C-alpha cells in the first residue's frame, strides 16, 4: 500500500472543496480519477502535493505522514505531478526544464547525471529534437509532454497526471497511453485525472469518482461506468440518461 | 591648497598639513548670532537650537550649543528634525512649549524656508530667529512677510562694510580691492550681484597671491609659512589661519549676519552684525512685526497665565481619535 488518504477535508472559506475523501493506492496500480468540473480533482492533487494543507484528515505516503509538508519535501519523497494548466519554465531550454525535475526530484542528482537522464526522458516523450529550444516556444501539446518529461525525470514512485491527454488528437492519445503503460510497467504507480472516458476506462485498474468534493463511487472501470450515481453526477438525472440511450436504440 | 566652499571643521583635524580654509568653519556659523542676541538683549537667556539631521547642520548646531552653554545661555531645546521634513507645525508646538526667547538652527534651502514660513503662520512669539543658508538666498523673499526680520549667517554680503578704515581700527593690514570695486567689476562681468560663493572664490585667489608675494617664491613650504603668519583684512573680511590642532582652519574671518527688512515697501537684505560691517540696525525683538499688525499687549498677559507646566495627558486621547477616524472611514466604505 503506497498511498493512504484518510478523511481529507479542504475548505476555501465557505466552499468545501474536499469532503472527507478516503482511499488507498496499491503499488504499480493505475488509479483513474473522474468527476464533473469543479468536483475537487485538481484540489485533491494539490493537497497530496502539499500545495494546500487539508483542514482535516491525513495522507500517508509509503509509511510517512506527509500531511502539511511543503511541496518540495513531498516531491523529494517520490511524488511527481503534471499540471492541468501547463507551467513551463519559459526562458529555460526544454532540456533545462527536464533537468530541474531530475535535479530536485526524488532522484536529486547532480547536473551532469541530470543531463543524461533528461536526454533519455525527452526521447520517451518524443521531444528529443526540441531539447535546445526555449520551453516558452513550444505549442500546447508539446508543453503537456514537457510536463510529463519533467515529472518522469525525477524518477518518482508515484506519478500524478492532471489531464495530460487534454487537447490531443486520437493518434496522440493512443501514443500517450502507450507511454503511460510503459511507465507503469517500470514500476511507477500512477493516479490520472481525465475527462476522456474511453481512454481512462481502458488504462485504469481502478476508478474513483468525485462530485462536489465527496467520493461517490470507487471500483473497477466497468462497475463505475454503470453506477447510477456516477451517471447522475455527469448527466444530472439517471432516467434521462437511460431514455436517451434507449431512444438512440 | 586653499579651499573655498568647504565649511566643515573635520577636514582640519584629519592630519593634513597643507590645507587652508577661506570660509568660516561650521562651528562658528551661528556663534555670531548668539553674540548678536546677547548684544541686543543681555538678560534674555532661553535659546532653542533646532537643526536638520544632516552633516553640515549638525556640525553647526553642536558647536552653537557648546558656545551657548559656555556663554550663560539656557539651551531649552536641542533637537534635530528629519531631512525632507515638510510640516513643522507639531515641531513648532514642541518649541513653543519650551518658551524660548530665540530660535537658531535650520538646515538647507527648502526646509529653512518652510520653517520660517510656518513660524510666521503660527505667529510664533519669539524675539530672534536665525536660520542657516535659506535667508542668505535672494529667493527667500518669495515667502513674503514671513521673511520679515528673519536673520541668518552668510560668509559675505555685497553690503558688508569692510573698509580700509575698519582694518586700520583693528591695526591689521588691508589688501586687495574694496567691496564696491569687487561688486562693480563682478556685475560688469556677469550682470548680476555676486553671491558669497563668488566672493569666497575670489578671496581664495587673493590670499594665495598675497602669500606668494610675502614668501617671494612659489616654493610650497615658503608659501605655507607665509600663510601661517598671515593676518590681513580684505573686501571679504579678515583672514587668519589656525596652526594648532585644527591646522589651517580659518579663525580670522567672521560670519556676517543679515536681516530681511522692509525698505520703502520692498523686502531687502541688510547686514546687521558684526558692528564693523553693519549696513543697518538690527530690528529686535522680531515680534514687533506682529505689533505692526496691531496685535495688542493683551495677548502677552494671556500667555503668562497659562505658563504653568504642561499637564501629563495620556496619549490614549490621540489613539482613540485615530481609531475613531479609521472606523468611520470603514463604515463609510461598507455603507456606500
Amino acid at each position, binding site marked *: 500500500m503506497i498511498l493512504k488518504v484518510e478523511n481529507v477535508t479542504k475548505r476555501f472559506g465557505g466552499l468545501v472543496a474536499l469532503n472527507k475523501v478516503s482511499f488507498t493506492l496499491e503499488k504499480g496500480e493505475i488509479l483513474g480519477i473522474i468527476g464533473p468540473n469543479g468536483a475537487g480533482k485538481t484540489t485533491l492533487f494539490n493537497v497530496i502535493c502539499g500545495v494546500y494543507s487539508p483542514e482535516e484528515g491525513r495522507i500517508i505516503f509509503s509509511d510517512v505522514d506527509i500531511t502539511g509538508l511543503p511541496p518540495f519535501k513531498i516531491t523529494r519523497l517520490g511524488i511527481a505531478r503534471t499540471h492541468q494548466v501547463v507551467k513551463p519554465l519559459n526562458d529555460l531550454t526544454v532540456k533545462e526544464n527536464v533537468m*530541474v*525535475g531530475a535535479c530536485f526530484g526524488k532522484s536529486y542528482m547532480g547536473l551532469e547525471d541530470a543531463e543524461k537522464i533528461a536526454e533519455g526522458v525527452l526521447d520517451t516523450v518524443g521531444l528529443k529534437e526540441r531539447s535546445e529550444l526555449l520551453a516558452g516556444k513550444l505549442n500546447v501539446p508539446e508543453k503537456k509532454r514537457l510536463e510529463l518529461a519533467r515529472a518522469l525525470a525525477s524518477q518518482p514512485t508515484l506519478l500524478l497526471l492532471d489531464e495530460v491527454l487534454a487537447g490531443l488528437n486520437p493518434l496522440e492519445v493512443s501514443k500517450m497511453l502507450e507511454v503511460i503503460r510503459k511507465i507503469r510497467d517500470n514500476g511507477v504507480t500512477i493516479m490520472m485525472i481525465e475527462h476522456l472516458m474511453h481512454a481512462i476506462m481502458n488504462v485504469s485498474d481502478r476508478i474513483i469518482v468525485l462530485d462536489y468534493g465527496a467520493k461517490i463511487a470507487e471500483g473497477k472501470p466497468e462497475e463505475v461506468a454503470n453506477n447510477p450515481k456516477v451517471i447522475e453526477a455527469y448527466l444530472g438525472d439517471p432516467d434521462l440518461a437511460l431514455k436517451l440511450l434507449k431512444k438512440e436504440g | 591648497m586653499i579651499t573655498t566652499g568647504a565649511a566643515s571643521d573635520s577636514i582640519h583635524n584629519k592630519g593634513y598639513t597643507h590645507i587652508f580654509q577661506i570660509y568660516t568653519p561650521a562651528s562658528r556659523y551661528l556663534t555670531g548670532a548668539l553674540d548678536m542676541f546677547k548684544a541686543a538683549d543681555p538678560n534674555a537667556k532661553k535659546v532653542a537650537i533646532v537643526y536638520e539631521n544632516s552633516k553640515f547642520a549638525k556640525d553647526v548646531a553642536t558647536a552653537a550649543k557648546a558656545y551657548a552653554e559656555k556663554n550663560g545661555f539656557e539651551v531649552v531645546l536641542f533637537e534635530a528634525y528629519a531631512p525632507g521634513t515638510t510640516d513643522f507645525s507639531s515641531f513648532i508646538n514642541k518649541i513653543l512649549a519650551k518658551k524660548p526667547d530665540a530660535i537658531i538652527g535650520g538646515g538647507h534651502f527648502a526646509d529653512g524656508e518652510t520653517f520660517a514660513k510656518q513660524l510666521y503662520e503660527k505667529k510664533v512669539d519669539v524675539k530672534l530667529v536665525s536660520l542657516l543658508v535659506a535667508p542668505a538666498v535672494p529667493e527667500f523673499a518669495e515667502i513674503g512677510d514671513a521673511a520679515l526680520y528673519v536673520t541668518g549667517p552668510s560668509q559675505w554680503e555685497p553690503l558688508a562694510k569692510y573698509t580700509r578704515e575698519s582694518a586700520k581700527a583693528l591695526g591689521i593690514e588691508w589688501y586687495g580691492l574694496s567691496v564696491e570695486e569687487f561688486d562693480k567689476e563682478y556685475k560688469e562681468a556677469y550682470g548680476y550681484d555676486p553671491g558669497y560663493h563668488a566672493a569666497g572664490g575670489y578671496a581664495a585667489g587673493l590670499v594665495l597671491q598675497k602669500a606668494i608675494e610675502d614668501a617671494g617664491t612659489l616654493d610650497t613650504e615658503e608659501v605655507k609659512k607665509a600663510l601661517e603668519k598671515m593676518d590681513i583684512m580684505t573686501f571679504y573680511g579678515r583672514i587668519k589661519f589656525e596652526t594648532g590642532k585644527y591646522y589651517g582652519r580659518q579663525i580670522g574671518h567672521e560670519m556676517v549676519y543679515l536681516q530681511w527688512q522692509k525698505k520703502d515697501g520692498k523686502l531687502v537684505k541688510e547686514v546687521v552684525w558684526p558692528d564693523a560691517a553693519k549696513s543697518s540696525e538690527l530690528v529686535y525683538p522680531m515680534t514687533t512685526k506682529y505689533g505692526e499688525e496691531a496685535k495688542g499687549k493683551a495677548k502677552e498677559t494671556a500667555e503668562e497665565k497659562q505658563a504653568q507646566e504642561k499637564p501629563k495627558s495620556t496619549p490614549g486621547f490621540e489613539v482613540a481619535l485615530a481609531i475613531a477616524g479609521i472606523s468611520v472611514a470603514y463604515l463609510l466604505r461598507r455603507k456606500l
Partner: protein
Amino acid sequence: MKKPDISLWWITIAVIVLIVIPVVTKSPILRESVFLILLYMTLALSLNIILGYTGYVSFGHIVYYGIGGYVTFSLIYFYGINLIVAMIIGGLFAAAIAYSLGQAILKLRGAYFAIATIGVNEAVKALVNNLDAIGGAEGLYFNIKVYNAYGGAENAIWLSYYLMSALIIITLIVNWYIKKSKFGLGLMAIREDEDAAIILGVDTRKYKSLAYMLSALFPGIAGGIFFFKNGNIEPENAFHLVKSIEMIFMVMLGGFGTVTGPVLGALVYERIRGLLLINPLFKNLHIAISGVVLLLIVLFMPSGIIGYVREKIAKIRRYIE
C-alpha cells in the same frame, strides 16, 4: 562542479587586463577610474545573483553596501582592526542581515518585494542617521594617521585597489559557477515560475535566502573597501538610493541573468556617465538623457546587450555566458 571553460576564461582575462593597465602605467587618474569601474562591476554582479538569476527586484540593494561599509569603518575606527579582517567581517555581517531579513521579505513577490527593499534601505539610513554612537548624521572620518599602519596613504589606496580587484574576480567566478551549477538552475527555476519550482522539488525559501545572502556579501566587502579608501562615511552616501538604481541600470543595460552582462553594463554605464558629465552641451541634462537611454533599453532591448547577442547568435552562447 563544472570545470571552467572558455566562457569564463576570456571574461576573467579581460577584467585582469583592465586591472593591470593602471598598475603598469602607475597613473593615479587611471587607477581611480578603474577602481570605480571595478566597484560598479562588483555591485552589478552581486545584484545579478538576486535580480538576474532569481528574478527578485531588489530596489534598495545598496543597503548592504552601506552596512558593510559602516561595520568595516567602525571596526577600524574604534578597534583599529586590520582592513582585510574588518572588510570580511563587514561582508559577513551584511550577509547575515540579508539572510535573516530575507526570511521575512522574500515571502513577498514582485513589486511588493521591490517596495519592501526600498523601505528597508530608507529605514536603515534613518536609523544610522540617529545613531550618534557611529557618528549619526555627521558620519565618521579617519585621521590620516590610520593609514600609517598600511605604509602611508598612497600604499593604502593601492592596497584598496588590489583588494577591489581581487573581490571583482571572486564575484565574477562565483557568478559563473552559480549560473553553471545546480544551485543556479534552481534559482532560474524560481525566476521563471516559483510555484512550479517548489512542486518540482526546489527548496525555494532556502535557495532565495542563500541567493540574497550571497548578493549582499560582496557589496558588504566592497563597501568596506570603498569607505576605507574614502576616509569618511555618512549615511547619505552609504545608503544612497540612486546608486541602488544605477546598479539595476547596469544589470539591465548589460543583460540580467548573464555573467558578462553586468560586467559590460558597469563598464558602459560608467563611460557614458563620465562622458555626459564633462560634455558641455549635455552636462546639466545628463540625468534626463540617462532617463531616455534607460527607457530605450527597457522598451526595445529588455534582455540587455549580452542577452540580445545571445538570443540572436545561437552558436555564440558557448563562448559568452
